[in-house]
Every structure is written in C-alpha cells, then in structure tokens.
C-alpha cells in the first residue's frame, strides 16, 4: 500500500524503535505533525525553543545510549537547532535531526522560511541528507540512524521538503543496511593489541587515560575488568567520568586543565600511557610540547582521525573500545608475563604522595555557601545515584570534581563545545528517558538563563528535575580568567539585574527555594528530593569570589598547575 511521506516518516520511526521525539512545529512540517497525531507509538515532546529540542534529545541519548530524535521546521526552526547539533557533534553523541524544508520546486528561490540546512549544518554533523523524492525517504531515514549510531557516533540531519511529506510511495523499511562508502571498523587489529599488551606489561609507571569513547562505546564493564587485572592507576576525562567508578582506589580523579594534581602528575611522569576512547583535547594535554615527555603511548580509538592528530602515538589501535578491551582482557589472562609488581608498588607510593596534597580541599570557614559543599552534599543526599546534567562554567567543574560518578551515562555535560544553556534541556531528555530517577541539573545564574523557557516544557510533561543554581552573581568562569590573566578587569562578567529565581520558578508553576546559609544546604536539598513529582528550582547564593582549582594555565604543561 502507498503511504504519504509523513506516514512513511512516522512508520519509519516506529520500525526504528523510537519512543520519543523532541520538537517544535511549523509550516514545513505540518504534514508530519498531522501524521504524528494519528498514532500512539511515538511520543512527541513539545519544547519551547529548538535549541532545547536538540539538547533534550542529546541528554536522552547520553543517558540511554539510544539515539536522540529531533523534529524542527524549516528556516528558523532549523537554525535554532544548530547549536544543539554542534554540541552533540563535538561530543560524538548519536542523534537524528529531521528538519522541514520548503517544497522541492521552491528550493533555491529564497522561499518563505528557506535556509540551506544541509549547507549550514554540514560542518557540524556526521552526515546529512536532503530527501528529494518520497521514494527515498524510508531508506534515507534508515541510513541516518545507521550512520548516527555506528562507528564514532554523531548527529545526522535529514532535511525533508514539504511536498516529500505529502506525496505517496510504497513503504518498505529495510532491517539491515550496507553502504559501500561507510564501513566502520568492528575489530581492533590483533597484532597491534598484542604489541600493546607487551608494552603495558613492561611498564614501570603505567597510566590509563580514558574518555567519552568508553561511555558512548558502552565499555565500562570491560574497562573496570582490565584496570583491576592490571592494578594500574586510571584517570578519566571530563567526558569519561563514571566509566570507571570514582570511588575506587585506583581512580586518581579527572585530568586536564581542572584535573587533580595526582592525575596530572601521574600523566606527566608515566612511562607507558594507555589512552582509550579519548582524543587528546587541548584542555587535557596542556602544551603538547610538554605532554607526557617520558611516555610511550598506546591509543585505542574507533576513529583513525583521532589517532596521532594532536600527539603522535607509538601503538595505534583502531577499533571499538568494548571489543578491544575484551580482547586485551583475554590476552592478559592468557599471558605468562604479569605486571611488574615491585615497580607498581613504588609508582603507587609516589602517586599516593601526590594524592596527599589533597588538591581539591577548599576553605569552609566562610560566611558564604561554598559551591563545592553544595555538590558534595548533593552527592550525599542522592547517595551518588542521581543523573547529573550541567551547564558550562565554574559550576560544571565543581560538579565534575565533587560528584563521584560510579556509573557511566550519569554525568551529562557539554565538554567539546562548552554550550551554556545545555543543562536544563538535557535534563529534560534524561528525565523523559528515566521517569523514576533523580535528575539534577547543576547550573549557574548565567547559563540557566540561556534556556530558562524550558521550565514551561517541564511543567507540561511533569518533569521533576532538581535545578541546583550555583548563583555567584558572575559569569564565574569568565571572571576567573579575568582575575588571573586580565589583571582583574571584569569586563562584562558581572550579572546585573538577575531575576528573582524563586518567583520565576513559581510563575512557571514550580517550586522555588533560595538558600543563602551554609547550614541550610543539606536540609534544603533533602526537602527538595522529597518533592518527588515536582520540579524544584534551588537558588543557592554562593561565594562570589570562589575559583576553580587546580588550574593549568594556557601554554603550561600538566606538571605546572596552579594549586590554590
């Protein structure tokens, strides 16, 4: 039987197993919205701004491992989504974004609400398509999901002209798909893996450096098994947090610009570095000339282009991290050689000395609430079990440093693009995917205002997110850089005329709280958590002068941290 493009669209999503779509309607997608309305397998969540649709789908994907799905209209709908698409692209998150387009006959005529969405999004997607013929629609959708979710994941945009959704074609949704031009690697090279194992077992001062690839690659279990087998120290990037339990004694904390002293010193002094699903970002390497000067480097990554891009490596392994780690574990178990226990003992002794510096300590003899204390208390009150999303700034770093993630997919933040405004909408996506779980959004008074309108979406869908606003009255991260590097000239980093967040939350139909005394922090958090089915906006008035430490200034090596 022939179906309209809009019906094909909806049926394809069903076949694909999609349960939720985040979107916003408009002229070019009206036929699709109409088809949506006539089925009940796929739920549409109406956001208040298309950027939020993309972030929500992104949070959904990060917390479940399933692709997030977005639907927006042509022109402004599509351009509004771009920030969210770029955010997902930088962090390798699987997402499929459908945008409406003007009818094929009008393309190129500067028609009403026309933008070249394929052109605009090209540099920030894994791939994109313009569907010109309704006969190609189902296959294109199938390809989009295949590309978004395999290999190194990423967002895929499918632009659908209005006439394509109204014309008819036979519906056939292919179960399997093969593309001659796209064949992601499924297995690491056994000889390279063997070489890596030999190098690992010869190490005197080994170091595991693992990233977001372990989370999106769903390989936390294998990583833990291998790390335990080896008794090596391990650090995670900002994107990798939770892939190795933060409360385990082999974990030395996050590395990089705001990483721990012990993580960065272990990196700097190691003799064998094992990088797994991490991409040697400049926030991690610091000055690459000074990076890991004495180390031989093994790098496991599914994307060959990530390997030897910023730092050249000695043993490259191209492959999916779960398979490669499984193979490594098997080879380690078979191997007669064992890690050098004496050398490791000395290495751990050294690391524990660095650890004893207690680089994350902060002063508590202050009349102000300390942001670190809020995060620590949140950890305690939620027993470490919450999903935590964050925005971008100092609060993001405090969240990363002080909430100890023991499980992957629980820490949801924008690392690569650093998108303020990500926190609340991504929390919506997480809460939609996990309706019974506690979802906390750690944010700042600057960031939260970038997508504050989503409080309305939260009311409509009953999303009981707990918003932890670490309100320092400053664009704090900017202020910190101005203090350190611009002689304290605080150009436009001060947030004047802040709204009354309590009233604002109430105006949107939620619960608002303001907390200004250190002794009230725990009680307030407990009270908020008791309000299981309400969104609670907690405005914590915190120490406005607090900075994030340690910090590696630009151009410095990992051993050249500013420690308080």
């Amino acid at each position, binding site marked *: 039987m022939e179906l309209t493009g809009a019906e094909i669209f909806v049926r394809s999503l069903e076949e694909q197993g999609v349960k939720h779509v985040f979107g916003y309607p408009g002229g070019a997608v009206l036929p699709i919205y109409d088809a949506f309305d006539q089925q009940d397998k796929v739920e549409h969540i109406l956001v208040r701004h298309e950027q939020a649709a993309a972030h929500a789908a992104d949070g959904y994907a990060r917390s479940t491992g399933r692709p997030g799905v977005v639907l927006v209209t042509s022109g402004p709908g599509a351009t509004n989504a771009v920030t969210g698409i770029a955010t997902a692209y930088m962090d390798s998150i699987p997402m499929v974004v459908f945008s409406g387009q003007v009818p094929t006959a009008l393309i190129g005529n500067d028609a009403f609400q026309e933008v070249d969405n*394929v*052109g605009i999004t*090209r*540099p920030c997607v*894994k*791939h994109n398509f*313009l569907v010109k013929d309704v006969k190609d629609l189902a296959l294109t959708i199938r390809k989009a999901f295949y*590309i978004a979710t395999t290999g190194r994941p990423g967002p895929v945009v499918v632009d659908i002209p209005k006439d394509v959704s109204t014309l008819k074609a036979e519906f056939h949704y292919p179960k399997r798909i093969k*593309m*001659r*031009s*796209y064949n992601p690697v499924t297995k690491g090279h056994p000889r390279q893996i063997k070489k890596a194992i030999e190098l690992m077992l010869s190490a005197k001062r080994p170091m595991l450096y693992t990233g977001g690839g372990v989370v999106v690659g769903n390989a936390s279990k294998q990583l833990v098994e291998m790390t335990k087998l080896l008794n090596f120290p391990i650090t995670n990037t900002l994107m990798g947090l939770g892939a190795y339990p933060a409360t385990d004694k082999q974990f030395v904390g996050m590395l990089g610009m705001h990483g721990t002293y012990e993580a960065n010193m272990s990196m700097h002094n190691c003799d064998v570095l094992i990088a797994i699903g991490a991409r040697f970002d400049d926030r991690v390497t610091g000055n690459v000339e000074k990076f890991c000067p004495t180390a031989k480097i093994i790098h496991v990554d599914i*994307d*060959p*282009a990530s390997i*030897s*891009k910023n730092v*050249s490596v000695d043993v490259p392994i191209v492959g999916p991290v779960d398979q490669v780690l499984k193979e490594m574990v098997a080879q380690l178990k078979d191997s007669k050689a064992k890690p050098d226990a004496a050398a490791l003992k000395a290495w751990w002794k050294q690391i524990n000395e660095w650890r004893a510096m207690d680089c994350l300590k902060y002063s508590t003899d202050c009349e102000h609430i300390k942001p670190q204390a809020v995060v620590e208390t949140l950890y305690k009150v939620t027993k470490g079990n919450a999903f935590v999303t964050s925005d971008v700034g100092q609060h993001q770093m405090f969240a990363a440093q002080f909430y100890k993630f023991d499980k992957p997919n629980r820490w949801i933040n924008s690392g690569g693009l650093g998108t303020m405004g990500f926190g609340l909408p991504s929390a919506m996506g997480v809460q939609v995917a996990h309706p019974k779980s506690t979802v906390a959004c750690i944010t700042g008074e600057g960031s939260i205002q970038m997508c504050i309108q989503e409080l309305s979406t939260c009311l409509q869908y009953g999303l009981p997110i707990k918003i932890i606003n670490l309100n320092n009255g400053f664009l704090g991260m900017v202020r910190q850089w101005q203090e350190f590097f611009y002689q304290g000239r605080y150009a436009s980093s001060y947030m004047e005329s802040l709204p009354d967040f309590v009233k604002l939350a109430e105006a949107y139909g939620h619960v608002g709280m303001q907390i200004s005394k250190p002794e009230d922090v725990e009680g307030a958090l407990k009270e908020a958590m008791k309000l299981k089915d309400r969104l609670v906006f907690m405005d914590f008035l915190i120490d406005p002068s607090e900075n994030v430490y340690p910090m590696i200034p630009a151009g410095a090596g990992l051993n050249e941290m500013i420690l308080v």
Partner: protein
Amino acid sequence: MRHIISILMENEAGALSRVAGLFSARGYNIESLTVAATEDPSLSRMTLVTTGTDQIIEQITKQLNKLIDVVKLMDMCEGEHIEREMMLIKVRAVDKGREEIKRMADIFRGRIIDVTDALYTIEVTGTSGKLDAFIEAIDAADIIEVVRSGVTGIARGERALHV
C-alpha cells in the same frame, strides 16, 4: 610536500562541497581540484593537489576517508604515477613573434587550436611543471588568457583506484 590525492565518491549532490568544506574548515591547502563522473555513473572521481607535512597529509587522508560519501581514495604519490594537466593559452602572435611562438608550442608538444591574424590559442598537456615552464618561456606581455584544468593522475602498473 606536494601530494596528488584521487578520491572515488558517491555521485551525490553536495559531494564536492563536503570535500571543499573539509579543507577550508580544517585549514588545509588545496592547489587544485578536479571532479567528473566516471564510467560508473554512480561514482565521481575527484583529484586534488595539496601540500603539507607528512602528519598533515595523514590527517587529510583520514579526514577524507571519514566523509560518508567517500568510497575509496589513493595518494598517488605513494607510488609510481602519471600526472597530467591541460592548459589552453591565448597569446598575442604578430610579426616575428608569431613564428617564435609556434616554435615554442612545437617544443612543448602543444597544439595550436585557434588562430586569428594576431592570436594563437594553444593547447598544452603535461605535468603542472611543464605547463609552468611553457608559461615561463613566453613573454608575459604576450599572454592574454590562461586556463588550466587542474591536475589529474593515475597510478602506473597494476595499482589502480576502483571499487
């Protein structure tokens, strides 16, 4: 180092802009870029000339391979290969110079393909270096117009780029 990279791509709308966009976004050089369909209408073949250190060339080939539409590619300079570029050049040819230019065209195995009282249009084919040399050999003041096709290339012997 100068490299000639040949790419087989799905013959889809926008394939060219994906390659061009990649080069501008990542700040790689493109000296020339040619593209046309192949004997298989579903594939187009692109040849691009770029320069960079070994490390940059490695990134370029990896990034190109990462484009979903790219089926296969080959760095011609990794083996023996033949490089060709075609040039059409319009030059002033009067008096004594007329004979001189014809002789020069012969030396470079060029062909005069259009003639007026005062002009010759010459077709020259060869490596880019040969075309450069031809331009050098002619008085700059006599050159009216130059159009070059950009480089194409093919590997020698058994080595071949095909699906």
